[in-house]
């Protein structure tokens, strides 16, 4: 399978990465190189094979549903590029 530049633009939009026309063209070549490389998996018969979900078979750990942390909003927002009164600030999203 291979991708065209329009597909690369659509995927970049899904991934929320702005790409220029020139970048989209270059990335199309690079992505096709990678997709061509992974094509060889078509040789493998995986009929009846379960997908791997864990490398070591273990039971999923469960923890007590209790509060173990909190009341530290200034530490949570401390690394935000823009914050105000311990709120993360974003451009207006609701009219």
């Amino acid at each position, binding site marked *: 399978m291979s*991708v065209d530049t329009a597909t690369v633009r659509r995927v970049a939009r*899904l991934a929320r*990465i702005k790409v220029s026309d020139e970048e989209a063209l270059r*990335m199309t070549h*690079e992505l096709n190189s990678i997709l061509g490389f992974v094509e060889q998996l078509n040789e493998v018969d995986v009929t009846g094979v379960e997908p*791997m*979900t864990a490398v*070591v078979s*273990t039971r999923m750990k469960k923890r007590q549903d209790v509060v173990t942390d909190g009341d530290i909003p200034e530490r949570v927002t401390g690394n935000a590029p823009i914050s105000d009164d311990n709120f993360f600030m974003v*451009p207006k999203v609701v009219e």
Partner: protein
Amino acid sequence: MTDLTDLTIAEARDGLKAKRFTATELTEAYIGAVERGRSLNAYVVETPEKARAMARASDERFARGEERPLEGIPLGIKDLFATEGVHTQACSHILDRFKPAYESTVSANLWADGAVMLGKLNMDEFAMGSSNETSHYGPVTNPWRRQGSNATLVPGGSSGGSAAAVAARLCAGATATDTGGSIRQPAAFTGTAGIKPTYGRCSRWGIVAFASSLDQAGPIARDVRDTAILLKSMASVDPKDTTSVDVPVPDYEAAIGQSVKGLKIGVPREYRLDGVPAEIDALWQKGIDILRDAGAEIVDISLPHTKYALPAYYIVAPAEASSNLARYDGVRYGLRVPGDDIVDMYERTRAAGFGEEVKRRILIGTYVLSAGYYDAYYLKAQKVRTLIKRDFEAVYANGIDAILTPATPSAAFAIGEKAGADPVEMYLNDVFTVTVNMAGLPGLAVPAGLSSEGLPLGLQLIGRPFDEETLFRVGSAIEAAVGTFAPAKWW
């Protein structure tokens, strides 16, 4: 008196205990070495004041006779590990100015055992790369050079800063991480030892995530014993990581020097690849001969799905990365580039903040997970992964104790040498190491000789799940036969 930075961790530990020198003297020696080694670009942040304070605390512990296992040992920390109040950016522009309010479990374990932090080490951006050339902070220079050449070589990646700093004696040992070979390949390129433990052995909590089902932390150090010492402290069972496995951490150091007599060492025929230099094959044969001479039984084995590990990896790893890296949106931390609206802000931030290789992998990952392609790519790759794991299980069920392979298909290459138009060329560096991540197994890279150009070459040992001890045992047998390797100082 010899230079304190020439001592291994085991030697420094003995010297400190015998009070031949203080933790402060040892730390000062390393702080000086780090300053003089700046041209290698191994460190992205130096923390000398923190190191001095930690060393003083260690000296007080020694005075009271209360020293812990790594008391006063100066280490470098890969920039992927969250260190409280200290630069943690995965060497990416998008995490600009990020200083976590918490400490990763692995680094917290090291400090709890008395280790001293020298600073944060350079790496490929988000651990995506095999040469350390994708770092936002520029490439790392390998302290090794080809005989009679001044060409600048890469230290491998993604833990290139860790490997270079250890080889150049800019730290006694370093933390590293390995998703497809990022501990073992740079260790092989720099004549250092490095182990990727079994998935679930070290907690991933507080380590910037790349591909969560593959990422594992491990140490890089001067010799096999030092990696065993560091892994004992780094490994733990951690309730904060649900994939941390409830298996007690053994005393890995006790395995060093134990006889390999009677062990069955598998040699997989599928690792003999066309186009791999003859000296890699010769090195492999040398490893086989060493272990046979030491009394191990060499067994020809088959791992039939080996060739599919790398293509399957380049679906699984980018898919998980595209999901993990969705969190970098310019809102909660790091870089933010203003836009016309919120989506435009996201798109501009991520376009400016991520480097080319990271973007490439996010796009591949987004594509293979997108509607209509999930089954054809991701699900298929996860099924192939099951087959790769079964290959290993069959071999171990037949009584094989460990598997011996080359660590890399070549010695270190020059900066820019593999920066061509085809990204797959760089990916092939991990052809021998990536199978181990796909199956979740432990893998140890141990230096085994020098190339015709005078560059270090490594062998890889692959073990059963949670049997790192056999790897330390076999690795120390190879090391006992070939010795250790250090670059001639030119920097």
